[in-house]
């Protein structure tokens, strides 16, 4: 990331100037497409050079597609793909008068765009009209007829004797930290609790915090990564929209432990209800003296800003996330320096996933031992939220202990597949997670056992393919997603994912030897987990379903 641009942004932030990305979002929401006048205005107000603003305006999905008076966005996430294939895009395009994705009707009345993913994986296919999401059978037809209605979201539940993540926040952890524990004991409790990151990488939160606590900086920040872009996952969506105060409490605790006075939540624009829910919760917390200056009568000041992204999967990677917070192109930067050393505005920054931070209030209120006891059958500490796609009989978000088998989760918790269908395979933890064939469903849902079979906990989504799924189509779908979402920074991902997609999209056999060389270059060469991770499900398919891939 350009240090000069970051310094420019820091100076403009100090005088409360909005970012270039915020200004561009406002402009397209106001008049449906971006003009050079919008870009010049954004440059002038944000302080970013015009060229850099132009670069931002060509990066994010939300800034690219022109909008009609009715803007229809069709979900092309993996759950919707499994439920309906390519039909939603085709049928909507035809029904809206022959629009291709990215087009607006000549009279400006309607426009169509693709989006990944709306987080309604429990009732695909999903269609968003302006800020309302309709999903399930009939959603496409209703969108065409202009009769969309908001889809219901199933209630979440916990399998724990006493729910932790699915219950509302109480701010008891922050009260205890401020009145009883103090900074150092809070930090040591979080370290002892071994809270592993819930966003995919599994890095211990306490270790990250200790780096930031020790780092030198005149200011420090906390960033909650709410860019839950993994198609098939709607866990952070539930956390941000149903228990936002727990996330805010976790951020305040992180700030208290490391010496940060301000936090940012970056939530996805694909979840239109998240930012308003978080802002309402923050306003309530300020009124109650739980955010702001002198929290609960202490000398600790902490407040938050809620930021919305603009349509980019890779912004979920931590360095790209920071670039997006600063209003820059959401591209990945080489580490070191890590955000703990140089984060927002070049200052030491804690970056934790939404679910990770939502675990912290329990650790602060009840201690590391109680947290470690939540999953009694394994060494892994805490509980995990999992979610299921529409193929299942009871798709929703569930809080489970680590260590159950994937079969128990699929069959006992989610009720098996609907209509007596049988599981062919499940993809766990998002598009960068391996694919587990039905023969391996007795694998335990935990970090190490899943890694041993080429899979990962990831975000915790469990996405079933039934026996009608064509695994070559699945490979093509995943690679199209991978290529479309590559940020374009590192060469293996930028070019390699395009080549891999072309191999599977062509009506010809895939050359296995060349494909495996390409997967190796992606795995070993990519700058971040996007290019490095997409090979995992491809490896699974090569191992378990080679006959379906059309190889030679």
């Amino acid at each position, binding site marked *: 990331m*350009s*240090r*000069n*641009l970051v310094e420019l942004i820091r100076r403009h932030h100090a005088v409360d100037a909005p970012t270039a990305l915020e200004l561009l979002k406002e402009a397209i929401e106001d008049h449906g497409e971006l003009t*050079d006048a919008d*870009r*010049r205005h954004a440059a002038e107000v944000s302080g970013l*050079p*015009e*060229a*850099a603003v*132009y*670069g931002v305006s*060509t*990066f994010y999905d939300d800034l690219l597609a022109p909008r009609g008076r009715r803007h229809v966005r069709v979900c092309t996430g993996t759950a919707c793909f499994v439920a309906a294939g390519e039909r939603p895009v085709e049928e909507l395009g035809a029904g809206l008068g022959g629009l291709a994705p990215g087009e607006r009707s000549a009279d400006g009345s309607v426009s169509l765009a693709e989006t990944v993913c709306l987080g309604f994986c429990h009732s695909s296919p999903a269609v968003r009209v302006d800020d309302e999401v309709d999903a399930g059978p009939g959603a496409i037809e209703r969108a065409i007829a202009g009769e969309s209605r908001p889809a219901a979201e199933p209630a979440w539940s916990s399998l724990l004797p006493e729910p932790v993540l699915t219950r509302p926040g109480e701010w008891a952890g922050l009260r205890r930290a401020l009145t009883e524990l103090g900074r150092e004991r809070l930090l040591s409790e979080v370290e002892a609790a071994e809270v592993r990151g819930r966003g995919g990488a599994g890095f211990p939160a306490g270790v990250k915090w200790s780096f930031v606590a020790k780092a030198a900086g005149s200011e420090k920040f906390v960033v909650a990564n709410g860019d839950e872009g993994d198609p098939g996952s709607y866990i952070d969506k539930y956390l941000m929209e149903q228990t936002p105060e727990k996330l805010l409490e976790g951020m305040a605790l992180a700030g208290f432990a490391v010496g940060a006075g301000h936090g940012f939540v970056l939530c996805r624009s694909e979840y239109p209800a998240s930012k308003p829910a978080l802002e309402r919760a923050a306003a309530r917390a300020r009124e109650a003296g739980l955010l702001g200056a002198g929290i609960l009568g202490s000398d600790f000041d902490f407040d938050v800003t809620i930021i919305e992204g603009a349509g*980019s999967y890779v912004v979920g990677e931590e360095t790209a996330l920071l670039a997006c917070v600063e209003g820059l*192109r959401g*591209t990945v*930067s*080489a*580490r*070191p320096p890590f955000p703990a050393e140089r984060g927002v505005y070049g200052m030491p920054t804690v970056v934790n996933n939404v679910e990770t931070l939502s675990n912290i209030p329990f650790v602060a209120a009840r201690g590391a031992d109680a947290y470690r006891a939540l999953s009694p059958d394994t060494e892994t500490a805490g509980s995990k939220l999992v979610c299921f796609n529409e193929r299942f009989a009871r798709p929703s978000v569930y809080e489970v202990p680590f260590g159950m088998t994937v079969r128990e989760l699929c069959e006992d918790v989610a009720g098996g597949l609907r209509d007596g269908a049988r599981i062919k395979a499940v993809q766990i933890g998002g598009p960068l997670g391996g694919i587990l064939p039905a023969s391996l469903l007795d694998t335990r849902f935990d970090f190490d056992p899943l890694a041993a079979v080429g899979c990962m906990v990831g975000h915790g989504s469990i996405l079933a393919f039934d026996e009608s799924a064509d695994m070559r189509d699945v490979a093509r779908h995943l690679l199209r997603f991978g*290529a*479309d*979402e*590559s*940020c*374009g*920074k*590192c*060469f*293996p991902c*930028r*070019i*390699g*994912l*395009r*080549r891999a997609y*072309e191999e599977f999209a062509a009506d010809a056999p895939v050359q296995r030897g*060349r494909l495996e*060389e*390409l997967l*190796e*270059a992606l795995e*070993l*060469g*990519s*700058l971040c987990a996007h290019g490095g991770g997409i090979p995992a499900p491809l490896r699974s398919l090569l191992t378990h379903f080679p006959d379906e891939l059309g190889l030679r």
Partner: protein
Amino acid sequence: MSRVTVDGTPVEVAPGATILEAAEAADRWVPTVCFDERQAPFGACRVCMVSVAGSPKPVPACTTPCRDGMEIRTEEATARRVSRAVVELVLSELPEPPAPHTELAQVAARLGVSGSRWSGAVHAREDDLRHPYLTLRHELCISCGRCVRACDEVQGAFALTATGRGFDANITAGLDAGFEDSTCVSCGACADTCPTDAISEVGLVAQLERS
């Protein structure tokens, strides 16, 4: 100071020095495409992969700091395979092979990559000839970021930006209306660093022909 070995040769490097700097001190060649010693390391091309004893994966030499006692190998088979695979991918995105005098062509030749087995999409031909001294041929851009960083870090003009994303990533000046309608000061730092001639200076003869 850190003591490391590069292909068996011991060298001492300053604290914070990268593996690439250590290799240079040991007079060992590491292939690079997005690196320019006048700019901060960027880590985009992933061609400078080397192996380090004890590390399960190859590491990029330009952004990996040396640690005391590191044993670095510049030609280890897996690392070299990744470097070659990436250069082969880069050649596949261009509609024509890079000119022999360009840095990309020279790195490819030295790595023994003579062409690409990959076909598929290439960058569309789009040549911006509006500026009297600078030509921007978008089809030759490999998004290494060297021109953008030269304009930012060396010249401070901020006239250039990366555009688009994924395979369609490219570069442009200002609001994409050419160098002259941007904050470009015609310093030529971008053309000087470009490893493919995507940005090049218009030679005297060509200038006369144009006028």
